[in-house]
C-alpha cells in the first residue's frame, strides 16, 4: 500500500478565514450618553481620546449636539462645557460620555464631581455608576473579578466624534436646535 506516501502537509488547506474573507466590523453608531446604571464600563486612558468642548442637550429628545467653536460666543448660556470621554461597556459598545465641567464660577456640583472622579477611576478598572438621590451624587461600584482590559475600536477619536455627531453638529445659527432655543420655530 502506498497510503503512507500521502503528503498531508501539501494537502492541508488554510482555515484562516479572517484573512480569506477580509471582513471587518464597521463602527457606524456611537451613542453620546452617560453609562447605564447596569453597565460596567471603562474609559480610554489616553488624552488623545477625550475632548473638552461645548454641547447643547435637548432634553425632550434626549439628544446631545456638538457646538462649533465658532458659535460659542453667540450661544453663551445655551451650551454646557463638557469633557467628552471615550468609554466602552462589557457588551463592547463604544460611547462618548459627556461629563460636565465646572461653570464660569469654577464650581462643580456633587453629581458632576463624582462623575469626573468615576471617569478617572474607570481608566484603570471596570466600574458601574449608580445615581444615589439621597447622597446627591453617583455611587461607584468596582468590578470584584479581575476582568481583562477592553478592546478599543480601531478607528481614531476624530472618527468616533464624526460618527457620533454626524447629524448633531451645530455649525450655524440657522440650525433648527438654535432656532428652537430662540423661539423662532
Amino acid at each position: 500500500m502506498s497510503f503512507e506516501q500521502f503528503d498531508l502537509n501539501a494537502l492541508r488547506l488554510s482555515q484562516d478565514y479572517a484573512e480569506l474573507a477580509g471582513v471587518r466590523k464597521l463602527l457606524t453608531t456611537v451613542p453620546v450618553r452617560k453609562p447605564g446604571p447596569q453597565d460596567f464600563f471603562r474609559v480610554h486612558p489616553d488624552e488623545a481620546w477625550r475632548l473638552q468642548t461645548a454641547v447643547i442637550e435637548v432634553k425632550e429628545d434626549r439628544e446631545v449636539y456638538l457646538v462649533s467653536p465658532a458659535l460659542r460666543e453667540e450661544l453663551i448660556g445655551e451650551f454646557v462645557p463638557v469633557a467628552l470621554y471615550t468609554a466602552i461597556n462589557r457588551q463592547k459598545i463604544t460611547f462618548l460620555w459627556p461629563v460636565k465641567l465646572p461653570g464660569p464660577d469654577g464650581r462643580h456640583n456633587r453629581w458632576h464631581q463624582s462623575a469626573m472622579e468615576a471617569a478617572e477611576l474607570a481608566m484603570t478598572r471596570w466600574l458601574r455608576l449608580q445615581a444615589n438621590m439621597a447622597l446627591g451624587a453617583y455611587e461607584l461600584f468596582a468590578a470584584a473579578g479581575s476582568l481583562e482590559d477592553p478592546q478599543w475600536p480601531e478607528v481614531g477619536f476624530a472618527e468616533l466624534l464624526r460618527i457620533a455627531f454626524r447629524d448633531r453638529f451645530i455649525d450655524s445659527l440657522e440650525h433648527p436646535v438654535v432656532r428652537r432655543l430662540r423661539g423662532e420655530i
Partner: protein
Amino acid sequence: MKALLSRFRHLVLVDFEFTAPDGECPQPICLVAKDLASGQVWQLWQDDLQALSTPPYPSGEDSVLIAYYASAELGCHLALDWVLPSHILDLYVEFRNHTNGLTLPCGSGLLGALAYFGLDSIGTADKDAMRALALRGGPWSADEQAALLAYCASDVQALERLLAALAPHLDVPHALHRGRYMVAAARIEHTGIPLDGPALRRLREYWEPIQARVIERIDSAYGVYDDGHFRAARFAGFLAAQGIHWPRLPSGALDLKDDTFRDMARAYPVIAPLRELRATQSQLRLSDLAVGQDGRNRCLLSAFRARTGRNQPSNSRFIFGPAVWLRGLIQPQPGWGLAYIDWSQQEFGIAAALSKDPLMWAAYLSGDPYLSFAKQAGAVPAEATKRSHASVREQFKACVLAVQYGMGAESLARRIGQPAIYARELLALHRHTYRVFWAWSDAVLDYALLKGTVWSVFGWTLHIEANPNARSIRNFPMQANGAELLRLACCLATERGVRVCTPVHDALLIEAPLADLEAAIATTQQAMQEASEAVLGGFPLRSEVTQVGYPDRYSDARGQRMWDTVWDVIEELA
C-alpha cells in the same frame, strides 16, 4: 480527466453485484470493470471471481479504482481475499462533496447524481428489480445471470458518464485522500463489532414481555405511563411535583422531543432513566439490529453522509444508536479485549488550534479546559481544583459545550438549571475570554456568507444555500475537521494492522487478542495523535482509553440502570 490520466496509467471503473444479508460481509455475485485508458472490459460471474486470487484489473500504484460508494466494492475484495487497490476515487464521495449543503432533487444515489448532471440512467424500476434479484440470493438461472451482468455493466457505463461530468470539478489529491478512507471503512465494516450472541438471543426472545415490564419498573418512579403509553398530562403532573420547569412549545404543550429530554436529563438526572426508556421505545427495534451469524454487528458506516462529512450509520442497525443501554451487548470474543479510545475534549482542542486562540489552547493543554476557562474568566481562584469548585466547573463545562453546539442562553440555562441571565453571563464570559476564537468564528461566518462555501483542512466543503443557519456554519470547522481527524486516524490505524471495530464520533473501538491489546492501543493512540497533528497543523490532541477484556462487557454509565432493569426482568421471565 487530464489530471487523472496524467497521474495514472489505468482508470478502472468497477461495480460488483453482491448479496449482503443483515450483519454479514458482502458476498460477490458478479463483477463488471472497465479500464478507461485501454478500453479493456472484465465481466465475471461469482464462480470465476472465487477462482481468482487477485483482482483481474490493475490495482497497483499506477492505477486508480473508480466506484460509487467504494467500501462495497472493497468489501467484495476483502470477501474474495484480494489485495486492496492502492488508490480509490469514490464518485459518491466526490458528488457529495460537490453538492454538500445543496438541495438535491433526486438525492445522492447514483441515479440522483446522474440526474443532477442531466445524464441518462437506467430506470429506477429496473434498478429496484435488479437489486431485488441480487438480494434474493442464488441460484440464478442463465437468463437471470445475464440480466444481472447487464445491469452491472449499465452501472459501469453510468459511472463513466458521471466521471466525465464530475471530472472538471475534481480536486484529485484531496479526492484520493478521501478515497483512502473508503479502504479503511471497508476494513472496519468487514471487521464489525463483537456482541454477546447468547445475550442478544435472550433479549430478542423476551423482547415483547420485557418492554411491558421495563415500563412498569422504570415508571414506578414517575407514574407517567398508562397502558404502555407515555401520557403528557401525567408527565406534567410529575414535573409540577418535582418543581421542574420544562420547556414548552409555542402552542403551550410540553416539548417532548428527544433533544429536550437529553438536555433536561443532564440538568435533572432524575429524568435520565425516563429518557432512556423513551428512546428505547421509540427507536429500538431489536430485529433491525444488523448482526451476522458470527455475532458481529455490521452495517454501512455511511461515510460522508452527514453535512459535516461525518459517518451517519443507521440508528436502528448500529449498536451505537440512541438506546445507550444496549451497548452492554458489546463483548470481546474469548481471549480478546476491546479498547474504546477517544480524543479528550476533541472539539475544544480543534477550536483552539484552528483559531490559534492562545488562551483556549492553554486551557486545552491544562488537561481540564473547563476549570481553566473558569480560572481565565476570573470565576474561581488560580488554586481552584475540580474538587474544590465542582459546581462552578460543571457550569463552565456546560458553557463550553453550549458554545460548541451553538446553543443559546435559554438552552444553556435549562442545562445548568439556572436563570437565563446567568447563562447569558456565562456565554458573554466565553466571548470575553476567548476573543481570538470568536473573531475567527465571526470570520468563518463572514466568509461563508460572502463566498458561499467553507471547507475542512482536506477540502470537505459545505455549500451555502438560501437561509443559512449561522450556528451550523460556525460549528462546521470543528465538526468537519473532527471528521477529518477520525477518518485519518482510521486510515493510519487500519493500515498499520489494527482491527478497528467502528469509529464513534470522536472515538475508535478496536479489538485484539488480550496479549496484543496494549500494543494495539499504543498503535491506535499514535495514529490518533498523528492524525490530529496533520489536521491541526502540528497540534497534538490527547486521547483516553477504556479497556474491556473477555468476559467483561462494554458499558456506558448513562444506560446502566436500564440495562440492569432489563436483565432483572429477563431473570423473572426465564
